[in-house]
C-alpha cells in the first residue's frame, strides 16, 4: 500500500486492519494527501479526526493521549494538551476551535475512512 492507495473523493477507503489498531491509541493515515488520525477507544469504537492540531499547526493528534471527560471520548494534543471530543472534533475548552471529523467504519475486518469535504 502507498499514498496513491487513496481512492476517489467521498468514497470509503481502507486504511488498515481493525486488529492493527490498539485500544486507546491512535495512528496516522494518509488519504488523498490529507493526514487523518484514527482512534480505537476502549469500547471498540472507531473515530477519525484530522491529524493537525489547530493550536500548533502540527500533525500530531494521532499521537495524542486518548481518554474521556465525563462520558465524552477525547484525545489530548501531545503538545499543549488541548482536549478534543473524538466524536465532534470540538475543543472542549475553546468553542472557537474544532478539528475536522471524518466518517470511519469497520467492514470485513478493515478500517475504512470517508474524507469529509466542503459541500458545493
Amino acid at each position: 500500500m502507498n499514498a496513491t492507495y487513496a481512492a476517489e473523493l467521498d468514497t470509503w477507503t481502507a486504511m488498515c486492519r481493525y486488529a492493527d489498531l490498539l485500544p486507546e491509541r491512535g495512528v496516522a493515515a494518509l488519504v488523498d494527501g490529507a493526514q487523518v488520525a484514527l482512534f480505537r477507544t476502549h469500547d471498540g469504537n472507531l473515530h477519525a479526526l484530522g491529524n493537525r492540531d489547530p493550536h500548533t499547526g502540527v500533525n500530531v493528534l494521532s499521537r495524542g493521549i486518548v481518554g474521556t471527560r465525563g462520558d465524552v471520548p477525547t484525545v489530548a494534543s501531545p503538545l499543549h494538551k488541548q482536549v478534543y471530543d473524538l466524536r465532534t472534533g470540538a475543543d472542549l475548552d475553546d468553542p472557537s476551535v474544532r478539528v475536522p471529523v471524518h466518517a470511519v467504519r469497520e467492514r470485513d475486518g478493515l478500517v475504512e475512512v470517508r474524507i469529509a469535504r466542503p459541500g458545493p
Partner: protein
Amino acid sequence: MKSCVGSDWCRYGVQDSVGLAVELELRYRGIRSPHKIKAGVSGCARECAEAQSKDIGVIATENGWNLYVGGNGGFRPRHADLLLTDVDTATLVRAIDRFIMFYIRTADRLQRTAAWVESLGGGLDYLRSVIVDDALGIAAELDAAMAFHVENYRDEWAEVLDDPDRLRRFVSFVNAPGTPDPSIAFEQVRDQPRPVLVAGPELEVAR
C-alpha cells in the same frame, strides 16, 4: 553516566574511572525510578566528570572511591553530599545499589534525589545509617530488588526491532508506511540538517 578519561589516559588519574562508569551504566540501565538519575565518575580529585553535581557521584582516591549523593544541576544547583570515603569497588556498588533502591521505594514521583535527600528526617546521617548500618533492617530487601533488576534487564528497543508486530507501530502512516510525513522538511544550517515546519494540506469539513 559521565566519566573523565581516568587512569588509562590521564597522568593524574588514580583509578580506572571509565571502567567503573561502564560497569555502573550496565548495572543500572533501564531501571524505573521516580525521576531521571544522573551519575558521574571522576578518576581523581580534579573532578573532570563533575560528579558532585550528579545524583550519584564517585571520585577516585589513592585508596579507593569516595561516594557523593544528592547532587543537582539546572535550576537548583546543589553539590552532592559525601556519603562514603575510601571504599573498595564492591562496597561502593553495594552502597549505590541500596541508595538507588531506597530512593525508588520512598521518593515522591518526579522528585530528584537532591530534594529527596533534603526531605529525609535526620539527613545524611540517617541515610548512611540505613545504607551502611542497615538501621531499618531492609538492606537485604534492597539488595535483592537490585539483583532482580540486574538479572532481568532487557533491551526493550531491541525487542521491538525483533518483533514485526510492534515495529509496525513506528511508521509514519498506517496505510503508507514507506511515505515520510510530507509536513516535515529539512533545511541546511551550518551544513547540518534542521527540521522546518511546512504547512500541511488542510481539509475543511462540512458538518
